[in-house]
């Protein structure tokens, strides 16, 4: 049973209604605000487990609401917006959004993202291994096994995979991955990322051309999915 409380900040009555029905029928508790001002007040008075935030609010830019929330609010924030430019999405992720979904969206997709974001908070560090499918990553020994057999990865491939897997369900931007895996001098060398993601997929995906684990977020980055909900 989900008991998580979700605050929706969106000015469109129809979207709020749709979200309310979808979320409540999935056993979430829903609170609503129709503008930035009320959203910020409601969040402060009664901090929810998660916030779904629209960027196109009537009284204030959603990005600025996001920045204000992130000064104190540590639970997941999911952006739900008609703005689909890569710049806008990357900016929201940089401002601390956990995820971003463009309207129109599939409710199934939304629920999967919510589950994944809420899970984020639970399996924090300390776990020395990550399991997905037939694979086990040993974070201490820095190895990966498939059905108990070692898979040969280069050092860079391992760093990339471990970083993605540790952030399961979360979009990691190209810049973030390049900075973390190759270093700050490489943030514009996205061809490295393309090539290494392709190599990695050949080693872990059943069909590298139809990846199940390392999913592309076009123009934004990559998302690791350990199992299909």
């Amino acid at each position, binding site marked *: 049973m989900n008991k998580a409380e979700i605050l929706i900040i969106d000015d469109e009555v129809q979207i709020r209604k749709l979200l309310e029905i979808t979320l409540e029928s999935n056993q979430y508790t829903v609170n609503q605000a129709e503008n930035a001002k009320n959203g910020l007040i409601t969040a402060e008075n009664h901090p929810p487990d998660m916030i779904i935030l629209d960027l196109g609010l009537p009284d204030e830019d959603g990005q600025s609401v996001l920045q204000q929330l992130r000064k104190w609010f540590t639970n997941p924030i999911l952006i739900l917006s008609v703005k689909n430019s*890569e710049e806008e999405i990357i900016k929201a992720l940089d401002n601390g959004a956990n995820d971003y979904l463009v309207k*129109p969206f599939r409710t199934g997709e939304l629920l999967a993202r919510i589950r994944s974001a809420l899970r984020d908070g639970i399996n924090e560090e300390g776990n020395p291994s990550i399991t997905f499918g037939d694979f086990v990553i040993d974070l201490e020994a820095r190895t990966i096994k498939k059905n108990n057999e070692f898979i040969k990865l*280069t*050092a*860079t*491939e391992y760093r990339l995979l471990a970083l993605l897997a540790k952030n399961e369900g979360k979009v990691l931007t*190209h810049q973030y991955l390049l900075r973390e895996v190759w270093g700050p001098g490489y943030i514009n060398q*996205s*061809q*490295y*990322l*393309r*090539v*290494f*993601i*392709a*190599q990695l997929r050949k080693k872990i995906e059943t069909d590298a*051309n*139809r990846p199940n684990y390392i999913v*592309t977020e*076009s*123009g934004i980055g990559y998302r690791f999915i350990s199992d299909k909900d």
Partner: protein
Amino acid sequence: MELFINKISKSIQLLISISMVILISALCFSIKNYLDYKIVAFILLLTVSVAAAIFDIIPVFVAAILSAIIWDYFFIPPNFTLQVGSTEDSILLLMYFVIALINAALTYKIRQIEKIARAKEEKANTIKLYDTLINTLSHELRTPIATIIGATDNLQSNNHNLTAENKEDLVSEISKATFRLNQQVENLLSMSRLESGFLRPKKDWCDIIEVIYDVVKRIEENNVKQKIVINVNPDIPVFNLDKAMLEQIVYNLVNNAIQYTKDHNEINIIAHNYGGLLELIIEDNGKGFPVEEINNVFNKFYRLKNTKAGGTGLGLSIVKGFTEALGGTVHLENLKTGGAKFTVSIPSQVSHVKSIKNE
């Protein structure tokens, strides 16, 4: 001729017509002894007529006046004076002058009438295009909206008469209609981005294999019956292009092929690198395009005649617009074996897998 002359500025036209009159006069003057001055009048009149046929009104008037003065001064006896010897010559000079002016004025008038006729025709064409646009757009947007309204009405007010299967069908129709509506809106938004002229490609490294498979996955989610075959060498380099635009190009071409072929047909997607030129081929084994319409299919809002497939006629014009924004070209031909073949060629920087050290 008309167009060519329109591009020449008025002052140059004036210069040319004056030079013409002076040149012809000089020629006539050099053979003056063999020519009667009345013949010279005809030759000069001819010159003015030629000028009237190709130039604007002012250069022609100037040529008419100038030639009359020259004729009078150099040819009508007594020479080298503006005086006219006989009454007959006075009448001749006056007539020369009037004929030259009438000549100029008449030609000008004909030109004006032509211009008005052309403007009318252009306006008629614009209105026709606008009507077609409004018709296709209203059809393409209203059909799905009508479906949604009808289906929801049915679900709301006729609920108890519907079987579970009916309801499922209605919901599925709503879903299809919204998908179609969404697609049309996306196309219109892409088109307005193109039209605004502010479309700047955001180049980044893209894995063309990934682009193609992602597009095919999206298309296959709509239960297409045609078989889609992808044929790309896995060692193809990564290209420095705008991925979103590339995706839209591939999507629109494959989607177009899906709409204009039958369920049993096959669609082939091929990508090559020709030394920094990305070549994308999307071909099918359907019927191909009517030969006389091939040149029009990339035009905005163009729809094939006698077509049953839905669409706003924007898909292929977006393909062309995006391809050209990336500095490339798109070409359509019919295959000898039947079917259509689209070839998109875009120059790009490439980076080879092997050139990146896999440490």
